[in-house]
């Protein structure tokens, strides 16, 4: 079955870049029926969609307006994974970060059907 395994540092200093990786098993990052997504969760902001990368004959990225100037989501086809890079972080970026598979043109609609285990990232000096 499809599984997502997250990795990355749990502590990031203010003004630095937060980077997390999500390794995919059981599916392909190049699948044309999946959008590989990052979502975060904090007590102050709740669940917040950050963005996604998807392959539609070329790579397409969509980012949330709230972070679009600071975020990059990169696919890595050689390792079948995708990464989140969020630069210039502040304590407001402290949250649990999840990677997820968003479906496209599926019988399940556009659901986030598979989630990573979550990574608690703290932004602090």
């Amino acid at each position, binding site marked *: 079955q499809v599984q997502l395994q997250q990795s990355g540092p749990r502590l990031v200093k203010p003004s630095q870049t937060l980077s997390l990786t999500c390794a995919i098993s059981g599916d392909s990052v190049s699948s044309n029926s999946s959008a590989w997504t990052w979502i975060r969760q904090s007590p102050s902001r709740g669940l917040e969609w950050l963005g996604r990368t998807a392959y539609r004959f070329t790579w397409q990225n969509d980012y949330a*307006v709230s972070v679009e100037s600071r975020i990059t989501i990169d696919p890595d086809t050689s390792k079948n994974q995708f990464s989140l890079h969020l630069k210039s972080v502040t304590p407001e970026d402290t949250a649990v970060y999840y990677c997820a598979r968003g479906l496209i043109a599926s019988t*399940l609609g*556009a659901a986030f059907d598979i989630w990573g285990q*979550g990574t608690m990232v703290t932004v602090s000096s």
Partner: protein
Amino acid sequence: QSVLTQAPSASGTPGLRVTMSCSGSNSNIGDNYVYWYQQLPGTAPKLLIYRDSQRPSGVPDRFSGSKSGTSASLAISGLRSEDEADFYCASWDDSLSGWVFGGGTKLTVL
């Protein structure tokens, strides 16, 4: 502040029925499907309802979803103690060009 509005808490007695709501606008719920997720303590959200009212394989038929206009509802019948969790609604927002979530409803089974 979440784009979709949910009551912060709900409660019910085992065996009975509880409903929770999710309110949005024409740019999200009014024009797009609603999805519901259940989050047990310390775990990632799990898909509960897709396309307003459909249940994925493995989700009991005690869970049901509905939508009318710019609001959606999740109902749980035959309430069980293991249903205690946080429930979130989600929808695509055309104005924001992104997914939006509700703030979540924490369900307590009395």
